[in-house]
């Protein structure tokens, strides 16, 4: 039996494949990705979340991720 795909796997894959291009023009902005496509860049997490809900609604998963390199590592001691 095929295992369930990781949530947002397609969106994360798109993010990682486009990240270097986006770093040139959208560094530190928040990219919104849903239904396999980038849906915009926003200056805050809140704005990207709001736009995601407006565009995709309650039932469609969407990714909100800050364009950063390297990826930050959050530490929990």
């Amino acid at each position, binding site marked *: 039996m095929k295992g369930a795909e990781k949530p*947002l796997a397609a969106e994360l894959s798109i993010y990682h494949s486009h990240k270097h291009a986006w770093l040139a023009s959208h560094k530190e902005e928040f990219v919104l990705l849903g239904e396999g496509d980038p849906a915009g860049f926003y200056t805050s997490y809140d704005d990207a979340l709001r736009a995601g809900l407006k565009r995709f609604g*309650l039932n469609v998963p969407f990714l909100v991720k800050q364009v950063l390199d390297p990826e*930050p*590592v*959050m*530490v929990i001691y």
Partner: protein
Amino acid sequence: MVLVQLHRNRGELRKTGPKIQVVVDHFGLEKQLAEKQKTEFPAGLRITALIDTGASITLVTPEVVRTCGLRQTSEMIISVAGRLAVVPEYAAALSFPGFGLASFDPINIVAGSLPKQDIACLIGRDILQRWRLTYDGRTGEVEIEE
């Protein structure tokens, strides 16, 4: 200014650390949209949290995420207990009922296990950046000033 006193017992504070009750819920915009569309979400979940100056981001257990039905928005790398892990990120709202502290809505939190602990949340420095926290181990008093 809001001033909250959390503990008054020195031994208890030493043993358990500074704890606070927190309600984890869907973020406000999501709840508003759900109400418009007559979609029901689970009620906010009241849990016990440890105020953790060693946590750079607020964390809840996967059980809390499942119970609340939070929306995953991404994933991130955390360094915990000597190893790196990729954990899911969720959009949520956090409030502190009865304390008069401002809510965090929306807030980006992560999920991770807290095995064999009587807490379901670590309040991290993403929240602490809005508070002045005073920990007095001599008297057992913890104060939050907002």
